[in-house]
């Protein structure tokens, strides 16, 4: 488990991370969302022991991470621009990493490289941007660490590769003690893989919640209510976060138990009624409005 308390980092006059307190449970995929400059990279670099916090505490499995090789052996950091030695191949990098990470799985590197169609002995410098990211991810996953910190790792991957990468992470989480933390400025990229999402803004954390938990309490429904009076009463009766009516189709984002909501709608004799999946962005709209933020502005 990773736990941060009042974590701060300042670069000159810029407060990059401002009192972040988060708990990241084991065996979950944690999404770290936020706009550019929100402090995601700085936060991850502190978690990886690269940067020393100005204030606050980080504990990884109860131990501090900075200058602690024993803890860092359980962490692999994939920065947004991964570094490879000049003229190095995946094989060379694998050999280098294997010297530092005790559970480094060299077979896995080879097999994953073959599966995604990368050349094991080809110079990485000749790879495309997406291929370099794939190579970095493979090298990171194969490190056998408990934690993998990915900073904008899916940026630059084609949709097929992105899906493959997500599957790979999900597979690792399912099969061993593995907790990736994925930072991204794109909520859509995180929504179908993360169990838990933290939203950073201006160095601070706006919220950090379990996606399933959030989804249980908020729903998007579409219905057609023939009687306008019934419709008005239904809107008053439900905890509507947002509603929109196009012709006779009423679309609502509603808080509460799904069964209960649908029962209330059925009582109004709808011509049509169904619950549809919420995007992560829509969930965030409802969750951040309490704090007075307009999520759309954050992510546009």
């Amino acid at each position, binding site marked *: 488990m990773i736990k941060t308390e009042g974590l701060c980092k300042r670069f000159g006059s810029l407060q990059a991370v401002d009192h972040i307190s988060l708990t990241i449970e084991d065996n979950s995929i944690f999404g770290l969302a936020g706009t550019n400059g929100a402090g995601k990279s700085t936060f991850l670099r502190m978690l990886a022991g*690269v940067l020393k916090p100005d204030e606050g505490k980080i504990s990884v499995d109860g131990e501090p991470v900075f200058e602690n090789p024993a803890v860092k052996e359980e962490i692999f950091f994939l920065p947004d621009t*991964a570094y490879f030695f000049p003229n190095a191949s995946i094989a060379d990098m694998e050999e280098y990493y294997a010297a530092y990470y005790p559970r480094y799985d060299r077979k896995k590197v080879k097999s994953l490289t073959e599966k995604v169609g990368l050349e094991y002995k080809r110079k990485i410098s000749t790879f495309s941007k997406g291929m370099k990211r794939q190579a970095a991810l493979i090298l990171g996953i194969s490190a056998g660490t408990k934690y993998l910190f990915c900073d904008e790792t899916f940026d630059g991957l084609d949709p097929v590769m992105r899906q493959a990468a997500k599957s790979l992470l999900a597979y690792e989480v399912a099969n061993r003690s593995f907790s990736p933390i994925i930072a991204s400025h794109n909520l859509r990229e995180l929504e179908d893989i993360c169990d838990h999402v933290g939203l950073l803004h201006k160095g601070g954390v706006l919220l950090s919640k379990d996606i399933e938990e959030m989804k249980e309490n908020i729903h998007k429904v579409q219905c057609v209510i023939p009687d306008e009076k019934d419709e008005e009463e239904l809107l008053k009766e439900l905890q509507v976060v947002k509603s929109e009516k196009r012709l006779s189709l009423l679309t609502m984002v509603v808080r509460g138990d799904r069964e209960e909501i649908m029962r209330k709608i059925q009582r109004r004799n709808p011509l049509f009624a169904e619950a549809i999946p919420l995007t992560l962005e829509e969930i965030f709209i409802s969750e951040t409005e309490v704090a007075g933020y307009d999520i759309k502005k954050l992510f546009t």
Partner: protein
Amino acid sequence: MTSRNYLLKTIGGNIRRNFWLMILFFLAFLVVMPASTLTALDGAKYIDTTNFTVNMTNTFIQCIRSSLVQVIVAGCGALAALSVFFYLYSQEKTDFYHSLPMRREGLFMAQFLSGFSLFLIPYVLNLLLTLAIGLVYGAVNQTALSILVIHTLLAVIYFLAIYGAAVLAILLTGNLFTGTLGFMTLMFYGPILYMTFTRLNARFFETIVQEMDYDFGIFLSPLIAYISGGTVDWTWKSLCIYFLYGVVLALVVILADILVYRIRPSESFHKAIAFKKLEPVIKVCGILPLSLLCALYFSGYMYNQFFWMVIGAVVLTLIFSMIFDFLCNMDIRMALKPKVSTGVILAVLILILGGYRTDITGVDTFLPDEEKVASMSLYLPSVSGQFQYPESSVTESPTYTTFSLKQWVEDFQEIYALAEKSVEYVRNHEAYASDVQSLRENGDPEQTMVMIYIGYHMKSGQDVYRMYYIPETEELVENIGRVYDTWEYREKILPTSYIDTEKIENIYTYSFTESGKALTLSDENQERLLKTYQEELENMTFDQSRREKQVGWLELQEKAEPEISAMGYSVNSTYTYSYNLPVYASFEKTRAMLEKLGNPMADSIEPDQVESILLSRYSYESGEEQYLEKEYRTEEDIEKLLAQATFRDERFTVGSHVNYQVSCEITWKDSKKDKIAFYIFEDSSLTDILEQLNQGNTD
């Protein structure tokens, strides 16, 4: 994976990745070590076939001691540091290395040893090649091998020191430009600081003697120390000092590297200085001496030097501060904003210049309590300047001044009295500094000045040296005479105390009539002659020395020993060193021996041999420089002039009765003989003659 394994793997990996650099180092060493040794030895093979082995060994040693090797070693230090620690200037690379599961100390050692290996492997390979070439040419003996080992150790130690300093420069900075500046600063900050200090002393203090600290300056820069250590002639003591300094420096620098790396923020890439809090400190420490030094040079060309020095220092401080602030922030508006650090520099600057201007520490009027002084030394160029000393006795001193000031006298009351007179003169002449300057520049023809160097050797162990330039008064002359007439002082300044008569190979005599005539004599006679001369010179009082005519001099030549190092090898081939000893009219025993040996040194010139005597001088009476000359042809005039002739070509001694303003030149009746020059003792018998000259009679 054990720590040893990852260390070896990291070093191996770094070497593979920087193989191009190792090749570059190898080629550089190949040129300056084996290739140049091969060329030199092959050429030397045909030069001196009579002493083949010594010649080849010396050539081989000279190749090993080439300063080019040292320059390459130092260059390797800088490049190796840049190569293995350059990642600190890049975010991606810093993230990569600092996220690895190892402590900073471990990472540092892995990188540091990688850089060291990059140097060591090509260096050792070329060393072995050089040795092989030396062996093939028969140039390697035990001495050469010892020197090779010493040079290798020096190279390794000083490489570590310079390489460590380059790493420190990288650790303290965040980009290549400031890193390079930082490295140059670490290499030359000491000499710059020292130069600023000595130049300020020279500008503001008229009595300070700074050349005594010659050796100190070498150790202010690791680079200069290394080049000096590799090229100077070693004594065991100096060798130990160079080794000790190198080892201590290397250890201190490496320790500083580790400590700085432990606390260096990872986010320092692209910043001018890695530690923000150090910016003002570095700014003050860097700009202050630089502004002062530049202002010193700039104002040196001005008439009102102090005014322009202050203006120059203030303007340069503002300019350098702006440049520094711009480099740190890359923002011109920030650079133009007033800063506390700039104010601090200006305040310190004013304090320093004000302190120097008012001589707040009393440097020029320094006179310690007599009870605090253990011994004193005195160097009078007008007395000792006419002598030359055996080379072996002064080799450790850069000048005769320092050599003389190392000759301490414990019975120093008369020297102290001389110091008191000198300090009193300085105290009573507020414009002493400008006096000295104007006298030096223009030369006061009316006033004879005496230059006095005094060394105070305090009971506390401190040595203080001062130089005074004061008028020659009868009181001063008597005081100097009392110093000279004490045997303890005279023994230390007369060259005869240092001459080893057995080393003298040839003696030549110079007299009024014959110049450079070789003296043919047996070893026994030579020893007797020199002992006789020594006795007469040592028994001569100060008063005699200033009143007596000099009738010639002896030129003693000794075969200088080849420069021998601590290891016992010769640096160069044999050569001859000569020095001159004055012979006075009263040295009758010496002159008698010379006459017996066929080289008479007459105390006068026969007037009947002289055709004419030309007298010349410069006159300033009209306010302008005027050249006067007159030729004397009458027998009476010639006789009068020759009776007062002394065989000297420069002004020496204090309170001399020799008229150095009038130059005399003899034209012989025998036109084949060369004209000779001499000076005259002033005497009432010459009044008419000099009157005629002063009247400008140029007939």
